[in-house]
């Protein structure tokens, strides 16, 4: 088990190295001088020279890349140009908020999506099924930033139930989490419906029913357990969707997380901070999908750990 985890983590290393490479390369391909863009037209010669030196821009791209990777390996992500603080400190301040938001959204999406999907599969072509399928079509089609604004208008401005934005209490979390969860609820409920419908056609479900197992247990012990594997894969992929969505949700709700930090970094042309933020997102995405792979073994003993 341990060797499997270690092997998978080692396999993630080249992917993360590649992510850093791609981000640095896109910044490098930037037309014009990066330093002038960062400091503006009226920067003093001295400041430009200093920043050039700090960024190591006089060195070839590959040397800079290797140096950056070497520093990251030692835990040094560089200094944010805009905030004049270590990037690691900036990221450390922001990531708990994003984690809180995405986990809340993922739990919400999983619970709502699975319940709706199972109900749809158990009563196919019922009124509820039609409603759920129509709802998921809309859920997939609504732009997340717009959903957030509509929820703010209704629940914060008209009804005055929940705060407009910011973070701090549980009430602050409700609207952003719901906003972020909605597209995933739609995806998960569609997938669950299809997976459960498939499993319910299996012979072993018929056997279980034939030997007199109650419908509740047929669902719980036989159908859901087996339908869970595709659902879990989707949850892993949805986490990437949620992180991207977090950038938009955090912007709409002024939620002090990584996504908002990233957008600010882009506007400030603070590429060191941007690189660090992208790296954290990619790392989180890789780790989540590793966890998903690990949990397959728990659900289905047939899936070995050789990976």
């Amino acid at each position, binding site marked *: 088990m341990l060797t499997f985890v270690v092997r998978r983590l080692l396999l993630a290393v080249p992917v993360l190295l590649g992510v850093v490479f791609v981000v640095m390369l896109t910044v490098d391909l930037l037309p014009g001088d990066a330093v002038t863009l960062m400091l503006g037209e009226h920067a003093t010669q001295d400041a430009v020279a200093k920043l050039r030196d700090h960024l190591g821009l006089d060195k070839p791209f590959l040397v800079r890349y290797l140096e950056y990777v070497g520093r990251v390996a030692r835990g040094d992500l560089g200094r944010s140009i805009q905030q004049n603080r270590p990037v690691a400190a900036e990221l450390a301040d922001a990531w708990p908020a994003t984690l809180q938001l995405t986990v809340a959204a993922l739990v919400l999406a999983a619970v709502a999506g699975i319940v709706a999907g199972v109900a749809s599969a158990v009563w196919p072509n019922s009124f509820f099924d039609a409603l759920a399928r129509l709802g998921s079509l809309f859920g997939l089609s*609504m732009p997340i930033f717009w959903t957030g604004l509509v929820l703010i208008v209704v629940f914060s401005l008209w009804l005055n139930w929940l705060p407009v934005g910011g973070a701090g209490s549980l009430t602050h979390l409700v609207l952003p989490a719901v906003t972020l969860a909605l597209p995933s609820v739609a995806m998960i409920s569609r997938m669950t419906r299809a997976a459960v419908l498939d499993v319910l056609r299996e012979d072993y479900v018929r056997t279980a029913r034939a030997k007199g197992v109650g419908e509740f247990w047929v669902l719980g012990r036989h159908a859901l357990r087996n339908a869970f594997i595709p659902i879990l894969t989707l949850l892993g992929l949805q986490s990437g969707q949620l992180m991207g*969505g977090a950038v*938009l949700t955090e912007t709409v709700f002024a939620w002090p997380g990584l996504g908002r930090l990233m957008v600010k970094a882009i506007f400030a042309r603070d590429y060191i901070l941007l690189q660090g933020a992208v790296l954290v997102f*990619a790392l989180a995405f890789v780790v989540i999908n590793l966890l998903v792979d690990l949990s397959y073994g728990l659900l289905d003993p047939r899936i070995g750990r050789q990976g």
Partner: protein
Amino acid sequence: MTAWRRFTRNRLAVVGLALIVVLALSAVLAPWLAPYDPTRQSLVEKRSKPGGKYWLGADEFGRDILSRVIYGSRVALLVGVLSVLIALAGGLVLGTMSGFFGGWLDAVLMRGIEILLAFPYLLLALAIVAAMGTGALNTTIAVGVWGIPTVTRMVRGSVLALRETEYVGAARALGAATPALLRRHILPNVIPGLVVYATLFMANAILLEAALSFLGLGVQPPTASWGLMVSTGRDVLLVAPHVATVPGIAIMVAVLAFNLVGDGLRDALDPRMRGSA
């Protein structure tokens, strides 16, 4: 039953197709359909409520929202179609090379694709826009490049499967050259699956363009982009909620239309998939 018959029997898919036709017409006929110039400002009428002179109200600068929504369909469809073309072209070339030639080329390309897929949704496009700068063209490129990894993987998968089929083997044995083999026997069988993907990608491309423009990193003012319109409305949410909400409905309808048609096409082209997902 032909695929077209199966498609038209799906009522939701037909609704989607009708909506796409309406969108395309509004994009093409925008100058004749729009009641006002989409950039004409009238500050005394700013934030006018819907109804009255402006059917859907006016925005922060007193610009007619209906006209801007109509013109916005041009941006959404143009960015969408062009980025789909970029994703398809890039994915077809890379996926075919990877699947057909295999070997080290395949290994290198697939590792590269894995890296691009490790970027959570939106972040790759954000990184590209961050580097290249904003604007309609850069947004299109960012959205298109964002789609390349997935298309590459799909194309590679089908090419790999087709390469091993008997008729490709037979054509090869008869002396068909590689380009002819690809053109006559492999690509025609890859394309149908891509049509479904392209339609669904179009929905995502519209969403992504809107998202980038909403963040201020996409299409720039005063061009009428739906995402940008929602973003302007954000500042006047309390006094004039229609400024932000109306263009959002346009985004939703456009995305819904392409999703419906994509689902319908998938069911029609591959009846085995019917009812699933």
